[in-house]
């Protein structure tokens, strides 16, 4: 079961990475990287189950905050730049 979980997470991360490289607009890249960070939180949780030890739970909380701050700043940048 853990193997299936990690395979699905890896496939999702690969698809998001494809969109982050491909673009074409800045919004696509930001959304794809945001998706990658959320997938990383899920991977940390799945890794905690695999180890039986949630030592990276703090990193999951930090990633949740950083993902939002990054997205919000880029949205702000787009609005100020005016397209």
């Amino acid at each position: 079961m853990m193997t299936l979980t990690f395979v699905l997470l890896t496939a999702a991360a690969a698809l998001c990475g494809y969109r982050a490289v491909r673009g074409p607009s800045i919004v696509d890249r930001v959304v794809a990287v945001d998706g990658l960070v959320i997938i990383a939180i899920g991977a940390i949780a799945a890794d905690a189950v695999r180890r039986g030890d949630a030592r990276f739970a703090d990193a999951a909380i930090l990633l949740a905050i950083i993902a939002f701050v990054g997205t919000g700043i880029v949205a702000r940048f787009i609005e100020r730049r005016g397209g």
Partner: protein
Amino acid sequence: MDLVSDVLLVVGAAWFLLAGLGVARLGDTLARVHAATKATTLGMALVVLGAALEAPGPDAVKLLLAIALVALTNPLGGHLLGRAVEENPGTAEVRIDVRATLDEPSPPADDAEPPPH
């Protein structure tokens, strides 16, 4: 508890894959924002909930806190991006070709000033 946790992990990971497919395959920037925001939030909540059921007390609280943070902030971030695109319709059409930028100077944009002679 073990079975519930396993099912939550796999179902959540499947939602992540669905989000990845949406981000990679949908044909429009706003549609991709929509796919990436909602499906990843649900997938993350399911996977981390599955992990929190297995984890001992304090770690479970940390994982639940991560769920709460993402459930609050991720839709908000998607909304901010969507509003920014909506108010500046040109943004979604701006194309940045990284390889072309690296290989050769990019052609001047349409609204750029002509170079001085």
